[in-house]
């Protein structure tokens, strides 16, 4: 088939025709513009993660121009008196220069760090939304795995990022990372020496390797997986909540063009604005206060970024068990908190679609309509217990700060946390299950109260309001809790 003939046009005059005559893009463009996005506030969480990543790349490129990945000692002379004249590594000195002398350097660095935190917050909340509403069910399992992988890579990327600075905080974090790498049964010693170019604190090449990992390898993989994550949602479309006209077979919402595109770009600008304002006004990681790292220096009260706290917590809570056999240390202690625990957490996340088929939804059908958390108390109770476990361990990571704040015995605090690890998830399970059952019985919104009113249609054809659904009105759920219909939100007066 030859190229379609049409009047020749110039790009500014008619870009659609100009590109279309060459690449046949008019139809795909129209399809893209008509692509429908369901509207729900929780669908913005993934977008917040995406836009944080864009801010990370933009600010990161700027930072990359000024950072020197070298442990060579130099005498730093800069405007910060307590460190001026000190012998520091080039890496640390370059970040101090960036912070104190490069125009907008500190702004970019703090914005970058805030963006990393928001990136992880948004991914985590997005994952919780997916989990609680069971959006990971068929046909979206593959995309869900991409998303869980992105979470793991984002944690690694954040860790690699603040480890580059070579201040005391990053050095202590790297020591723990080294200890954890060494604890992998069998290969740990070789792996640790391989990554660090020798025993900790590592050879001259270590920082350049970490730099390449942080600015190229991991971002490239993350960007590729984000692209796959978006591409893989195009064909099955987004899920949607139940509502008027919403069915398993359709998707109801705003077309991309123009309102959705404008709102989403506005959201991007809002995310960027919040991150820049945080970077301007809220100090984060004041590296000059930590001072340089040496292996024999440590500091009380050092805390990692929040998304690593659960790993520190697991390392802290573990009793001092190790497994010895054949004269070897088969499982050194950090293995349990640093490898096994995150392995189990991610194992559960990856297994969720199968767990759902066996234990929660108990079917293998395609699901495009989302569950509300209450719709499946089994799943919601499990998710709540699971989240509670990780959050307890996360807070245990700050046990040293709590210890100083409460001036109780540190040992007592750790024992309390060890007990909570077992007790809190059970309590969370029971509470979540009861809340679900009650919400289902009353068909109330947890925050707004009862949705909707009971309306009776008279024989004459008129409608009569009988009262709110709470007062014994008919529920749109079957006795066993499965949704009876997809109605119920047609008219939603906001009760109190």
């Amino acid at each position: 088939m030859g190229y379609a003939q049409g009047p020749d046009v110039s790009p500014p005059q008619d870009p659609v025709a100009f590109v279309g005559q060459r690449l046949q893009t008019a139809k795909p463009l129209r399809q893209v513009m008509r692509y429908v996005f369901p509207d729900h506030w929780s669908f913005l969480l993934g977008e917040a993660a995406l836009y944080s990543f864009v801010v990370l790349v933009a600010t990161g490129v700027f930072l990359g121009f000024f950072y020197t990945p070298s442990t060579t000692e130099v005498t730093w002379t800069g405007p910060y008196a307590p460190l001026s004249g000190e012998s520091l590594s080039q890496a640390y000195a370059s970040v101090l220069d960036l912070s104190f002398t490069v125009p907008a350097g500190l702004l970019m660095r703090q914005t970058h760090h805030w963006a990393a935190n928001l990136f992880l917050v948004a991914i985590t909340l997005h994952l919780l939304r997916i989990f609680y509403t069971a959006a990971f069910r068929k046909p979206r399992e593959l995309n869900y795995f991409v998303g869980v992988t992105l979470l793991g890579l984002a944690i690694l990327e954040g860790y690699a990022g603040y480890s580059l600075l070579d201040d005391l905080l990053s050095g202590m974090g790297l020591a723990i990372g080294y200890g954890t790498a060494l604890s992998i049964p069998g290969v740990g010693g070789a792996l640790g020496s391989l990554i660090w170019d020798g025993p900790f604190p590592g050879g001259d090449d270590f920082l350049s390797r970490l730099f390449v990992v942080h600015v190229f390898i991991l971002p490239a993989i993350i960007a590729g997986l984000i692209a796959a994550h978006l591409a893989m949602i195009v064909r099955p479309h987004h899920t949607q909540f139940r509502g008027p006209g919403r069915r398993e077979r359709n998707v109801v919402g705003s077309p991309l063009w123009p309102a959705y595109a404008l709102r989403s770009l506005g959201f991007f600008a809002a995310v960027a604005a919040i991150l820049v304002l945080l970077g301007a006004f809220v100090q984060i990681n004041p590296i000059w206060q930590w001072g340089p790292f040496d292996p024999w220096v440590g500091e009380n009260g050092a805390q990692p970024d929040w998304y690593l706290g659960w790993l520190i917590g697991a390392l802290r809570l573990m009793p001092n068990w190790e497994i010895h056999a054949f004269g070897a240390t088969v499982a050194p202690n950090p293995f349990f908190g640093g490898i096994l625990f995150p392995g189990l957490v991610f194992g559960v996340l990856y297994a969720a679609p199968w767990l759902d088929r066996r234990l929660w939804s108990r079917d293998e059908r395609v699901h495009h309509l989302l569950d509300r958390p209450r719709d499946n108390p089994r799943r919601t109770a499990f998710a709540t217990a699971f989240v509670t476990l990780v959050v307890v361990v996360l807070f245990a990571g700050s046990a040293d700060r709590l210890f100083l704040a409460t001036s109780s015995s540190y040992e007592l605090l750790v024992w309390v946390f060890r007990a909570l690890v077992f007790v809190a998830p059970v309590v969370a399970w029971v509470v979540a299950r009861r809340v679900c059952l009650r919400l289902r019985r009353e068909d109330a919104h947890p925050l707004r109260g009862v949705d909707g009113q009971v309306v009776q249609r008279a024989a004459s054809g008129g409608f009569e309001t009988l009262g709110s659904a709470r007062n014994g009105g008919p529920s749109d759920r079957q006795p066993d809790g499965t949704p009876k219909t997809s109605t119920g939100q047609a008219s939603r007066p906001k009760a109190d």
Partner: protein
Amino acid sequence: MRARLTRLLLLFGLARGAARARNEPGEHDDGIDPRRRDVPASPGNELLVAVLLAVGGLLLVAFGVLVAVEASTQLLGGLLGAGLAALAAALIVAGKGVVVQETSVQERISGDSPEAVQRTEDELASGIEGVSRRRLLLGAAGVTGTGALVAAAVPFTAIGPSPEALLGSPWRAGTALVDEQHAAIRADELEVGSFLTAFPRGADMRELGSPVVVVRADPAELRLPAGRAEWAPEGIMAFSKICTHAGCAVSLYRYPVDERLSSGPALVCPCHYSTFDVRRGARVIFGPAGRPLPQLPLRIAADNTLVAGGPLSGSVGPAWWGTRRGRT
């Protein structure tokens, strides 16, 4: 070509019609058509968007100018953030109050039909028609693949040295203890409760096997393991400063003792609070560390300075496969 297209379209339409008639289990058609299309036609909103865009542009230009004159982080970030916020407001007002507001409905795809999958699998299979020794070829390809993996992995072993280097420590019998400024450490300068960091004279201070903590306790209270009676002259002891849990510096010394909170003088690692009882040879009394800190035998030289009486009692730092339990 055109005939085939028509047939395809017809099939597609039939399939869609059939699909529409079928309801998913547990749902029925509520008969509600959610489609709507509103044209806001609001000149007021258009003006607001124009003002917000202009304000945002001015703020961003101001940011650009002030970067050149090296203004403060707060001023720069405030301008850039405010500019972006104005842009965000403009876009959101435009998206919600200027352009067409539409709720539309799209049908979803239903995934591959079994027939489509079968046709593709047949297509795949048809390409190897007549190939009889499939297993042999697969096996041979496996050999090549394994070889390629090995070939790809071998260069990576060049990145790191052998883990045997993890076992090294510069301490030998007779090595003098020096402080961070390379000055010798005198025994008579240490009081009970003292706590300082020492290094082997002339060695690399950053090597994990180098730094030790030196503490002094009342000799009468010592309960050192068997065979270490001579290691603590006048109650002065030295232990590796690198935590046997995850490799942080054991930089806290709990002394003097608060009887309400703790049982005795102890070294504490700030990373995960592994706690080592100095009076019992740095035995772990709390926290996750799996073995004691290696002890350095000490003796006091004729000039009253501290020297090592032998090598460290075990391997330094976080445990790995090659860490021997008996050598703690």
